[in-house]
């Protein structure tokens, strides 16, 4: 089955473009356009000019603008609305293509419902919250829920795109299963957690299709600004008619509508919703499902990132990095004993010891079948493990546990070993002592390995003004050492769900926006409290419901990318708004002289562009206004190039490119269109 991740939709996929073209005409419905006041004004304007053209055709009133002019202006005004619709439709279409893949796997699944201890075959769609179903190897899980009995390996590639099966078992944090995923082995009993139509898959489809989309607070604020500007320009254009009449110029309604449409911020008004959808789409491409556009926006404004140490900052498992022998012991002997003690140890720490001994001292993992040997597993009481082989009693474990062990056998812990252990602890590592009989051979340095490149990443965040806080259950000393190595700004040691929650509330009380990741049920309150809560897909249902994003790859480092996408979204919106308004300057210089020069030739110096004729000037401005929307669709969908700089530097750059560029570009654009029109002898 093709996973949604594998499907990389190109920016202008032919099928999407075709569908979007049809969709953009359907979206001309005034009830839909009315949701976007700026485009609604344009649509009313196009309707008005179309009616004017029809009236002129039938009544031929004296002094009317030429018919071809009114017609072409109204056609291009309609195009302006259609192009804006097209932008939105393309953005939605990309989501729809992904939803289609998801929907394919929601085909009817038969469920084996447990009714009074007996199995009854029912349709998956008939399952209700609380129903119990049996799923066996090779069958699809009929709905979202929780395993109440059994353990199974599950293929979740349909949702996550990750082909490796995951283990799901009853109890604990790994009990959640998702409808539409496939059980590969064993038998489980699942308690269905949602009613039909509310499942994760349903919500995912609704989200990517844009059906569940609502305007975000930022979008609403920008809309208010755009509507305000539209009203101002409406007044400016309407009052121009009587003012011009006083100067004995009769302005045609078509010209005034054209002027109005060119002035109101149609570029950003038309692209606004496309930018928002594209932001969620970009996240989805990174396999992060945002539950709302609001969450994406909040991610862009985040001030504090709470990052779990394990998995995000460190590789997750402690690794042996060094053998430090006792004064009288050769390092090879220590390595050899440590390896023997770890041969049966399947924990990542144990395996790393075997690997290190092999790599550093050429000691192969041996077959220990010959001779008498017993492996001693780790227990919480002894806090040691090891093996008894050929009369040797080899143990490894926490330093104090080994000390107790050797003292009981008549040995002692050398001061040098104790000092080495303290040094390791100070550097953020964990010392592991190794003993052979009553002799302590030395310590193994187990280290939390910080992920490569992570400190550079944090430095970039610092430059953007984002504070990173590491959350860990380690003691403060260890935490401080790792925090220093990773380059985080702060850390919370010995963290519990309560202290985590308190930290979030404290940050928020200071007026900051907080983002965090979590997967366990005990993370749920904090995920809900944080402004951006990214739940891991492997996490519990409670965690997934509390957060406002779900990371399908369950990769906590993704939080950093989420923030970048959010920032990019906000910047794209800002730059296009600047561009849209800066464009107006040139349009004035095109249209105003065109309106007045005929009556007052003295105004000719205002006509800096020397356009072919007044009609061509107005028409060129209207055409430019429509075409620029199409030209900016790729930028709106892809987002502006993102640079991790401080706010002031980013702003200065954007102003230079999109502000100054926005003033200059239309002069060139309008002149070019005018020349093309003149060359084609249209005007």
């Amino acid at each position, binding site marked *: 089955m093709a996973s949604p991740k594998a499907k990389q939709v190109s920016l202008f996929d032919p099928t999407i473009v075709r569908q979007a073209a049809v969709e953009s005409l359907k979206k001309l419905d005034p009830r839909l356009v009315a949701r976007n006041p700026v485009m609604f004004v344009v649509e009313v304007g196009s309707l008005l000019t179309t009616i004017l053209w029809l009236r002129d055709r039938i009544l031929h009133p004296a002094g009317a603008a030429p018919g071809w002019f009114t017609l072409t202006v109204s056609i291009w005004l309609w195009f302006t609305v259609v192009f804006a619709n097209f932008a939105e439709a393309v953005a939605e279409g990309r989501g729809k293509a992904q939803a289609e893949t998801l929907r394919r796997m929601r085909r009817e699944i038969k469920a084996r419902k447990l009714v009074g201890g007996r199995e009854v075959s029912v349709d998956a769609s008939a399952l209700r919250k609380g129903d119990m179903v049996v799923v066996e190897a090779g069958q699809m899980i009929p709905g979202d829920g929780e395993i109440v009995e059994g353990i199974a390996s599950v293929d979740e590639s349909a949702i996550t795109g990750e082909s490796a099966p995951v283990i799901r078992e009853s109890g604990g944090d790994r009990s959640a299963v998702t409808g539409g995923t496939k059980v590969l082995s064993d038998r489980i009993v699942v308690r269905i957690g949602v009613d039909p139509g509310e499942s994760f898959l349903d919500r995912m489809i609704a989200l990517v299709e844009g059906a569940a989309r609502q305007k975000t607070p930022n979008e609403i604020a920008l809309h208010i600004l755009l509507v305000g500007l539209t009203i101002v320009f409406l007044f400016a*254009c309407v009052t*121009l008619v009587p003012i011009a009449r006083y100067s004995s110029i009769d302005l045609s309604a078509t010209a005034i509508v054209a002027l109005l449409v060119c002035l109101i911020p149609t570029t950003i008004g038309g692209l606004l919703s496309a930018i928002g959808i594209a932001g969620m789409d970009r996240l989805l491409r990174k396999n992060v499902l945002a539950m709302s556009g609001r969450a994406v926006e909040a991610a862009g404004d985040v001030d504090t990132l709470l990052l779990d140490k394990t998995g995000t900052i460190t590789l997750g498992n402690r690794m042996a990095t060094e053998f430090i022998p006792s004064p009288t012991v050769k390092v090879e002997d220590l390595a050899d004993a440590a390896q023997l003690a770890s041969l049966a140890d399947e924990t990542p720490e144990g395996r790393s010891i075997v690997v290190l001994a092999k790599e550093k001292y050429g000691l192969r993992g041996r077959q220990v079948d010959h001779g008498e040997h017993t492996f001693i597993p780790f227990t919480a009481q002894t806090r040691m493990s090891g093996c008894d082989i050929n009369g040797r009693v080899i143990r490894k474990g926490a330093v104090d546990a080994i000390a107790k062990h050797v003292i009981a056998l008549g040995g002692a812990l050398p001061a040098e070993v104790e000092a080495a252990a303290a040094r390791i602890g100070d550097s953020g590592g964990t010392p592991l002592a190794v003993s052979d009989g009553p002799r302590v051979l030395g310590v193994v340095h187990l280290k939390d390995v910080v992920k490569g490149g992570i400190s550079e990443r944090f430095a970039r965040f610092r430059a953007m003004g984002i504070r990173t806080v590491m959350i860990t259950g380690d003691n403060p000393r260890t935490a401080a050492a790792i925090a220093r190595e990773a380059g985080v700004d702060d850390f919370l040691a010995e963290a519990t769900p309560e202290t985590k929650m308190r930290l979030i509330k404290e940050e928020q009380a200071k007026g900051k926006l907080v983002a965090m990741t979590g997967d366990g049920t005990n993370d749920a309150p904090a995920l809900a409290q944080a402004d951006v809560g990214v739940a891991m897909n492997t996490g519990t249902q409670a965690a997934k419901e509390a957060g406002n994003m779900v990371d399908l790859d369950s990769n906590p480092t993704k939080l950093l990318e989420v923030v970048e996408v959010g920032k990019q979204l906000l910047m794209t919106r800002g730059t296009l708004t600047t561009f849209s308004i800066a464009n107006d*300057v040139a349009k*004035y210089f095109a249209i105003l002289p065109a309106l007045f020069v005929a009556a007052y030739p*003295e105004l000719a110096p205002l006509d800096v562009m020397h356009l072919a004729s007044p009609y061509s000037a107005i028409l060129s401005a209207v055409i430019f206004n429509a075409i620029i929307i199409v030209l900016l669709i790729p930028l709106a969908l892809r987002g502006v190039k993102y640079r991790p700089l401080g706010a002031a530097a980013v702003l200065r750059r954007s102003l230079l490119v999109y502000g100054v560029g926005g003033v200059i570009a239309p002069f060139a654009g309008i002149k070019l269109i005018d020349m093309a029109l003149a060359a084609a002898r249209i005007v």
Partner: protein
Amino acid sequence: MTGGFDMLVGRFLMIIPALAIAGSMIGKKTVPAGPGTFPTTGPTFTGLLIAVILVVGALTFLPALSLGPVLEHFSALAGKVF
């Protein structure tokens, strides 16, 4: 009479949204400044503010002005006075 009314409206009606903005500001929390905050001191902000005022102002009044003072200016240059 209508002129007086317009002046009243122009002067005082605009105060209502301004007060509304001020009102909503009261409810907001103060966020400490950091490197992610846009500094409101310095040339970038000054330039931006001036540019926004000029552009939005010009966009609003240019059409009317071009038929008034601007036209008069060019006419006077051409030796034509009203």
